[in-house]
């Protein structure tokens, strides 16, 4: 596997957020989902920048949605995870789980 093909931490979290949100994943809901679970403020532009990178790698696809008055007439951009994206998430999970297996001192019960 080439170096550039590994998923970064933020990339993995974004893909997981897309899976959790399903059809209603766009900038605001993705940022809210990340903030809810990480308890950190997310810069929405960094969400778009990372999703653009994932889109170039074929892990995510997007479509333009409806525009509403509270958005100043600007359209939403909805994101969906692709089959390749789901495969990458599974691979990352498998790798992380294997790495965790032999580190009982870092499991949640002991922390």
């Amino acid at each position: 596997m080439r170096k550039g093909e590994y998923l970064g931490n933020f990339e993995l979290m974004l893909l997981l957020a897309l899976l959790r949100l399903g059809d209603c994943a766009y900038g605001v809901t993705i940022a809210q989902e990340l903030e809810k679970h990480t308890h950190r403020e997310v810069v929405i532009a960094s969400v778009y920048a990372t999703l653009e990178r994932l889109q170039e790698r074929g892990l995510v696809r997007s479509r333009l949605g409806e525009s509403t008055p509270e958005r100043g007439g600007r359209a939403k951009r909805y994101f969906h995870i692709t089959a390749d994206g789901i495969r990458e998430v599974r691979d990352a999970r498998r790798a992380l789980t294997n790495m965790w297996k032999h580190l009982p001192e870092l499991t949640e019960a002991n922390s």
Partner: protein
Amino acid sequence: MTQRQPPRLALWMLKHFGSGPDNDALLGDLAEQYAEKNSAWWYWRQTLGGIVVTTFKDIRNHKLLALRALIVGWFVFWFLWGRLMQYGVPFFQPVTQVVVESLYKSLFAVRSLPEVGVVRAVRNLFEGRVVGPANRFEFMLFLRSVGHVENVAWFCYGALATLGACVVGILSGWIVGRLHRRKVSMVLAHGTTVLVNWIVLGLTTHPVVWPPLSWFVPVLTLGMVLGGVLCASRRATTRQQSLSV
């Protein structure tokens, strides 16, 4: 109920300095979130973060273009700054001296302002309240010196030189923007290197004259950014006109 508008300056900055295909969607997302959060501080954080993120993204995705922008930008800046220092600044000093002195003499027929108007009002405001008794003498000297013709001429000379620096900034920013795609990001990258260079030079070589240096630096950098934005706006308008035709 009317919806509160996000801070105008932040909105303008993100519209002009943000780049990429998702900038419009990002503006919509921020507007939608702002209606909920209603926090200008949050909007500013998102705007500045967004500009930094999109600029870095453009530079990372177009490394050679960014390198070319820096080389072109520094060459243009070095050339224009040299002309300003060689021909502009030495010309400004005698001109401001002559113009201000003649104006000053014809207006007041004296070489210093009498203690009236603004000077007296400021003195009354500060004397014994803001300025302590120990510093009162120096403060009065300062107030009197403000009205001297030499100081007014010196101030005008400084203002003219700063204006010259601003023009150099606008021109170099405009040229960098004109010659590159992703113009605003490239201009921001160039402006940042100029800013960092001046700050490092100012802190390492002339730590004592840092405050006067700080007067030029923001004007120059803002001029560059303005030049880039002017170029980008002009290009967008031309494209829109050609599309409508």
